C-alpha cells in the first residue's frame, strides 16, 4: 500500500499503490480524518484496480489478462467492460452471493430436519442451500432478465431446482438447475413474499403470529428495522401472561408504536401460519383456510400502514407501489457495493440512485448508478471519512475468483466449505451465517488469514505449471498482474523468484509454485479490492 501523502494545498491525501494524486477535480470532499479543517480528496482507483473491483462485484471473478491490459492502455474501456460484466453468465451467481449478505436465508439449520424428507446424509447441504437460495434465485432471475424489480414481490412464480421440486408442492419447468416453477397449493402470487425459502428462514411460532415475519419484511423491503426502535417494558405486563400482553399491544403506547402497523401486516401472512412450526407438512404447504385467521386471532384488520388489504394477494402490490421500496432498493445496493452502512449524510447520493432506478425500473440501473459513483471508484487504505477505500475479500469471492482461476473447489463431503458453518469456514473466513453473524467481516482476523493461507497454497499447488528459468519469472509476473491488477515491480519480482528458487531447491517444483502463489494470494492487493 502507498499510504497517505500531502497534496499541494496541504490536504492529506490517500494514495493507491500505483497512483499519484492526479487530477482531483470532481472528487467527493470530506474532512480529513487527521485535520478537521482541511478537506480530504478521494483518489480514484487506477483503471485496472477499478476493473478488478467491478469484475469481483458483478461477476465474482478476476478480469482476464487481456482486459487488464486493455484498460491499462485505455481507461475509458472500464465502462465498456462494466456493461459486459452486467450481462456476464456469472452475474446471476454473484448477485445471489450479494443477496445472501442482506437476506440471510442461506442458514445451516431450519426448524425441520432433512431426515424428515427421507433424504440421505449426503443430501443435507444441498437441501439446506436449495431452500435458502429459493428467494435469492428468484430475485437473481428477475434481475438477470431485466424485468421490473418490483416483480420480486408480485410475480406468481418462483425458481426451483430438482431438490425443491421433489419435496414441495411445486410444478417446475424441465431443465437442469434452477427453473421457473409454480406452487400448486393455492398460494397467491407475491414474489419472494410467497416463497417457502423466505419463511423457512424467517419462521414464526404459534404465539408470535407472524409478527417476526412482518418485521423481516419491513427490514428487507423497506429498510425499516422495527428492532432498532427503542421500547420500554417498564409498564408492560409479564410477557409470560399472553392475554395481558396481547391487550398491551393494543393499549400501551410503547407497544402501539410498533404493533399498530406490525400486527395488521402480520395478519396478511396467515396462510403461512403453522399449527406446528416443526412439522414439514405444515411448513411445506400454504394454508388458504387460515388466511382470515389473523384478523380473528389478533383482533386487527389486515392493512399496509393504514391502507386496508384483502390479503397476501394485495400485499405485493402494496410493497411495490410504496415509495420506500424504491428507496430501500437504492440504499441496499449502495450498502452492498460501497461495503458500508449509509446514513442521512448520503441522502442526496442515494436519492440520485433512486431516481436512476425509477427511470428504468430494473435493478441493473441501480448497479450502474452505484458503480458509477465517485465513492465506489475511490481508492484508499482503510476508511477515508466514511468511504471504504479497500474492501476485504469474502469467502464467497475467494471461492469464486480462485475457483475460476485454478479450477479448485474447496469441498468436503459435498459441502462447499466457504458456504457453510456446519463443517466449513464461512464465518471463520469472514462471511455471514445469517443468524449470529449478519454482516461481513471488514478487517482481517486470525481465522480469516488461515483461510486465505489454505486457499493460497492449494491454488498454488493446483496451478503449478511446468516451467523453468526465465519462464518462471514471466509467469509469476503474469500471475501477479492477474491476481492484483497491479504491475509487480522488478525488485519485488526478484524477491519472489528468489523465494521460488530457494523452495524448489529445498523441496520440489510443485511446492515452489505453491509457496510463490501463496505469497501472491496473501498479498493485500489480492485479499482486498
Amino acid at each position, binding site marked *: 500500500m502507498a499510504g497517505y501523502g500531502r497534496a499541494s494545498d496541504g490536504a492529506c491525501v490517500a494514495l493507491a499503490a500505483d497512483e499519484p494524486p492526479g487530477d482531483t477535480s470532481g472528487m*467527493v*470532499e*470530506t*474532512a*480529513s*480524518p487527521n485535520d*478537521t479543517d482541511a478537506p480530504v480528496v478521494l483518489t480514484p482507483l487506477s483503471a485496472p484496480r477499478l476493473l478488478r473491483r467491478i469484475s469481483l462485484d458483478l461477476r465474482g471473478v478476476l478480469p482476464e489478462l487481456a482486459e487488464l491490459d486493455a484498460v491499462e492502455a485505455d481507461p475509458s474501456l472500464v465502462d465498456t467492460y462494466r456493461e459486459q460484466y452486467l450481462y456476464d453468465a456469472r452475474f446471476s451467481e454473484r448477485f445471489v452471493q450479494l443477496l445472501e449478505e442482506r437476506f440471510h436465508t442461506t442458514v445451516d439449520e431450519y426448524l425441520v430436519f432433512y*431426515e*424428515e424428507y*427421507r433424504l440421505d446424509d449426503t443430501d443435507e447441504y444441498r437441501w439446506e442451500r436449495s431452500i435458502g437460495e429459493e428467494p435469492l434465485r428468484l430475485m437473481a432471475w428477475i434481475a438477470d432478465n431485466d424485468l421490473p424489480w418490483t416483480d420480486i414481490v408480485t410475480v406468481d412464480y418462483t425458481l426451483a431446482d430438482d431438490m425443491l421440486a421433489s419435496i414441495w408442492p411445486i410444478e417446475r419447468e424441465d431443465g437442469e438447475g434452477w427453473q421457473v416453477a409454480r406452487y400448486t*397449493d*393455492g398460494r397467491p402470487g407475491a414474489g419472494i413474499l410467497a416463497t417457502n425459502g423466505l419463511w423457512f428462514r424467517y419462521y414464526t411460532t404459534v404465539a408470535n403470529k407472524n409478527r417476526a415475519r412482518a418485521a423481516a419484511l419491513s427490514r428487507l423491503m*423497506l429498510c*425499516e428495522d422495527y428492532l*432498532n426502535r*427503542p*421500547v420500554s417494558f417498564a409498564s408492560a405486563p409479564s410477557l409470560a401472561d399472553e392475554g395481558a400482553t396481547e391487550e398491551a399491544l393494543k393499549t400501551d*403506547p410503547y*407497544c*402501539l*408504536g410498533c404493533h*399498530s*402497523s406490525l400486527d395488521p401486516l402480520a395478519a396478511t401472512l396467515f396462510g403461512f401460519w403453522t*399449527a*406446528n412450526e416443526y*412439522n414439514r*407438512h*405444515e411448513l411445506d404447504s400454504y*394454508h*388458504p*383456510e*387460515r*388466511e*382470515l*385467521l389473523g384478523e380473528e386471532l389478533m383482533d*386487527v*384488520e389486515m*392493512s399496509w*400502514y*393504514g*391502507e386496508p388489504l*384483502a390479503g397476501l*394477494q394485495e400485499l405485493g402490490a402494496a410493497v411495490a407501489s*410504496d*415509495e*420506500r421500496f424504491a*428507496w*430501500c432498493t437504492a*440504499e441496499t445496493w449502495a450498502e452492498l457495493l460501497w461495503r*458500508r452502512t449509509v*446514513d*442521512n*449524510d*448520503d*441522502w*442526496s447520493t442515494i436519492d440520485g440512485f433512486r431516481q436512476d432506478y425509477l427511470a428504468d425500473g430494473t435493478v441493473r440501473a441501480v448497479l450502474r448508478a452505484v458503480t458509477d459513483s465517485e465513492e465506489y471508484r475511490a481508492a484508499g487504505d482503510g*476508511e477515508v471519512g*466514511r468511504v471504504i477505500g479497500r474492501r476485504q475479500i469474502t469467502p464467497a469471492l475467494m471461492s469464486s475468483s480462485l475457483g475460476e482461476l485454478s479450477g479448485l473447489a474447496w469441498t468436503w463431503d459435498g459441502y462447499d466449505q466457504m458456504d457453510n458453518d456446519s463443517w466449513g469456514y464461512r464465518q471463520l473466513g469472514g462471511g455471514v451465517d445469517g443468524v449470529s453473524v*449478519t*454482516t461481513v467481516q471488514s478487517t482481517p482476523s486470525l481465522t480469516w488469514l488461515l483461510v486465505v493461507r489454505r486457499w493460497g497454497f492449494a491454488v498454488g499447488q493446483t496451478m503449478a505449471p511446468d516451467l523453468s528459468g526465465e519462464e518462471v519469472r514471466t509467469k509469476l509476473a503474469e500471475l501477479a498482474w492477474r491476481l492484483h491488477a497491479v504491475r509487480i515491480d522488478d525488485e519485488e519480482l526478484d524477491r519472489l523468484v528468489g523465494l521460488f528458487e530457494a523452495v524448489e531447491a529445498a523441496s520440489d517444483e510443485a511446492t515452489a509454485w505453491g509457496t510463490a502463489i501463496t505469497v501472491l494470494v496473501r498479498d493485500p492487493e489480492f485479499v482486498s479490492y
Partner: protein
Amino acid sequence: MFLLACSTPVPVDTSAVVAPLDSSSEVADSAVSDTGDGCVDARDLSWESFGHGFFRTWCTSCHGEAAADRNGAPPGVDFDTEAQVETWVAAIRRTVIDDATMPKGGGVYDEDLALLDEYLRCGLGGGEEAGGSPSSPKAALTADEVGATIDTLFALGLPDATTVVETYMSMFRGRDSSCPGNDGYSLPGNFRGCQTAGGWIYAGVAGLDYLGSGSELSFDLWADCWISDDDGAMWIGAGDVEYNGTWADGEATWETELAGTFGYEASSTAWIAEVPSMVFSSAGRYGDGWEMSWSGSFSSDNEAVYLDQVSWTSTCPAGEGRVLLRGEDAYWYVVDLDACTGCGSVSFEGSQLGTTCVELAAAGADLLARSLPGDEP
C-alpha cells in the same frame, strides 16, 4: 429506512463530517450548501422522496383515513396526502419535533426528525399525489356456483376430532415388537422412521392422552409424524387435537379444538382421506333437544371454506351463521345465512351476487353423529 446505520455499527470517523449547516439540523450533506433559509440546497426533500414514506412509517397506521383502528387518533387528523400534512403542519411540528409526544411510544430517529424538520420548512407542498386505489377484483363465480362449491366440500363431511384420533389409533394395527417399539399410541421421535416386518413405517413424534370410559371421552393428541401402511398410503399428523365430552343425567356435552394437518389417504371417511389442513373449534349439547356450534376453516385440494360462528339447534337444524368460500384469486365469497333456512345472500368484495342455499343441515346432522362422546351409558 431513512439511511440509519443498521444493527452492526460501522466505526466512522465523525471528525470527517462537515460541520452542520444549520444549528437546528444534525445532518450534513458533504457536497451541498445552505440557501440561507436553513434549507439544504442539494437535498430534494419532497412528498415523494421523503414525506410519504415518513408518514407511512410513523403515522398512517393510526392517522390514516382508512385505518381500521385509529388507536385514539382524532377523526379527520390524517396524513395520507401531502395536503393533509400541510393542514396539520403546526401540530406535527409541535407533537413530533418539539414535544416528542407523537408517535405513540416515540422512536423516531434523531436524524429523521432533522429531515422531517427540513421537509416541513423547505419541501412541503408542490408534490404530486400517488395514483388512485387499485380496482376491485371481479367475482369469477355466480351465487349458485358458490353454493354448489360449498356443498361439494360439505359432502365430504365437516372435520371432527374423534375421527382424527380413531384413525390415528387404527394406524397402529401395523406395529410389531420393534417398531415403533411400544404398546401405546405414541411415537418416540425417529424422524427417519422405523419399518416393521410387514412394511409399515412409523416416523416422527406423537403423543396421545386418551380416556374413554362409559360416560366420559377425552383425548389430547399432539403430533409431528407420519405413518405409512403396507400399501404405502400415508397418515399425516401435524398439530393438536383436543376433545372433552361427558354424559351426565341423560345429556351429553362436548368441546373440541383442532389445529393442523391430519389425514389418512386410504381412509373410507371422505374428508379425512383428503388430508385437509384445518383450524376449528366446536362445542355442543345433546339431550332434551340439541345444539352445536362449529367455527373454523379447512381446505383440501386448494378449496378452502370458513365457517364463521355457524350453529345448529334441534329447532333450527338448517343452521345459521356465515360461510365463506375462497375464490381463485384468494378473495373470499361470503354467504350470510338467514336463520334456519340454509339460504342467504352472497357477496364478493362488497358486491352482492344474489342468493344461494347450502346443505348446512345435512352437514350438521352428520357432524352431530360423530361429535357425541360415545353412546349414552
